[in-house]
């Protein structure tokens, strides 16, 4: 997948040039301001999940690390949260400006794991904040790996700086969640996922009705869509089935800035359609995709510079 620079671009056939443009591997080296924006995006999303104490106070059905006897109920302690939340805010701010992530990311990472584990120890498994914890974990592991490489005089992959590696691993872990989800779909359905997609209609009804009982406010009525999917199974296969290749091929979004933009926007569109139909937010997924893949400020700066060059030429 590495770019073969020995051949001049113009000597290559058109299809190979197109392929290289879309899928050629070009490590993403970020400028300092870009990295502050991206880390700021991660810190902001993490802050949304950590700015309050957990609504739970006990672990009736221990999950994950709680099954090893670890007690995470402290994250639901209101008195402790008066000290813990300002500490987390300071840590996330220091991480955003790039100060010693191996230390500043540790308290938010532990708090994020505690929140998720305590929430999942109530008897049901939720996946809302999982992506945020995974990104914090990846960024922290990257900082530890960078430290280890510096001590052992090893080069970081693609000659990244430690800060660039942190963002690269954060992107890698996001796309890994989509690829793992696609693999699970294939395994759990024993290959019949696509043929069973019309039954997704029942999930739409379930989600719409459940949303009403949150606050007894009627949710958008999408029952007509559910019945349409049952009545037109081919339509269901086309509409819902598109999610599987998008998730399965999500790793291609790591190759270069253009593929990152394409997969970032496609996955945001996918999540937005699920939000409309199923009343499921996916706010953290969409925010992280926007910050780390779509990266709109970088594209705006590129467009500005191109315009400037065109003006100078003319």
């Amino acid at each position, binding site marked *: 997948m590495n770019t073969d620079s020995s051949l001049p671009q113009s000597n290559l056939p058109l299809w190979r040039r197109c392929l290289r443009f879309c899928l050629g591997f070009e490590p993403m080296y970020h400028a300092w301001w870009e990295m502050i924006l991206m880390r700021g995006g991660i810190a902001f999303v993490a802050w949304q999940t950590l700015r309050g104490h957990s609504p739970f106070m006990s672990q009736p059905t221990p999950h994950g690390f709680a099954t090893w006897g670890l007690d995470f109920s402290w994250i639901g302690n209101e008195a402790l949260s008066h000290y813990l939340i300002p500490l987390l805010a300071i840590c996330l701010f220091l991480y955003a400006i790039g100060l010693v992530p191996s230390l500043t990311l540790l308290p938010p990472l532990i708090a994020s794991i505690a929140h998720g584990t305590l929430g999942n120890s*109530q008897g049901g498994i939720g996946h809302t904040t999982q992506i945020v914890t995974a990104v914090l974990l990846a960024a922290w592991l990257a900082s530890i790996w960078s430290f280890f490489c510096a001590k052992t005089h090893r080069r970081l992959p693609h000659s990244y700086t430690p800060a660039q590696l942190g963002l690269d691993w954060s992107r*890698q872990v996001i796309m890994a969640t989509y690829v793992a*989800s696609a693999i699970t779909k294939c395994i759990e359905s024993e290959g019949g996922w696509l043929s069973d997609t019309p039954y997704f209609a029942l999930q739409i009804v379930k989600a719409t009705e459940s949303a009403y009982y949150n606050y007894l406010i009627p949710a958008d009525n999408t029952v007509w869509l559910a019945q349409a999917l049952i009545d037109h199974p081919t339509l269901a296969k086309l509409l819902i089935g598109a999610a599987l290749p998008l998730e399965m091929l999500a790793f291609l979004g790591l190759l270069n800035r253009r593929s990152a933009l394409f997969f970032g926007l496609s996955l945001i569109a996918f999540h937005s359609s699920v939000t409309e139909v199923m009343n499921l937010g996916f706010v953290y997924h969409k925010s992280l995709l926007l910050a780390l893949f779509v990266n709109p400020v970088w594209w705006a700066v590129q467009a500005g510079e191109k315009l400037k060059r065109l003006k100078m030429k003319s």
Partner: protein
Amino acid sequence: MESFNRLSLHMPKKIYQWFLCLPHKFHWFFVVLTAFLIPWLTRNTLKPGEWYPFSNFPMYSNFEKQAYYVYITDKKDQPVAMYPTFGNWPSGIKKMYDGKLKITVNNLKEKAKAEGKTYKTKIVNMTSEECRPAGDATLKQLIETSRTPEEIKKHEGFRLYQVDITLDKDGSIVKKPKLVGEL
């Protein structure tokens, strides 16, 4: 044949070389960890594949011909706003109930086995009485762990309903509620 042998000899080396060139090793490590290793390590738990913060993300991985949701009412059968009352979303309460229902089904299977029978009833076909231990246990846990006891005290008691969603013979979506818990 000779070229085939040469290829099979070189294949492991080629795969290793290809792995070394793979640009996103951390990504693939995380994919293998969450999609294969964690599910295998947690295969004997109630939720295989789940170990926060790792998950194989099994949501909507298998569409069945039936689904269900739950809601809670007061003793007069008036629906209760679930998040303000219990501090948990309907989807969370449904998952909580679902976990307890699986334990109930296992108990029914063991009881049937002891009697020399087999228990194969699907969740949608289970009677209210069969679901009752799971429903009662869910309400008990919600009441005991609520952060807002003042909201709980506003009501004399609660009822948990399971609404089964299926398709009838004409392909129309049908919803059938049944009482599965009362405290």
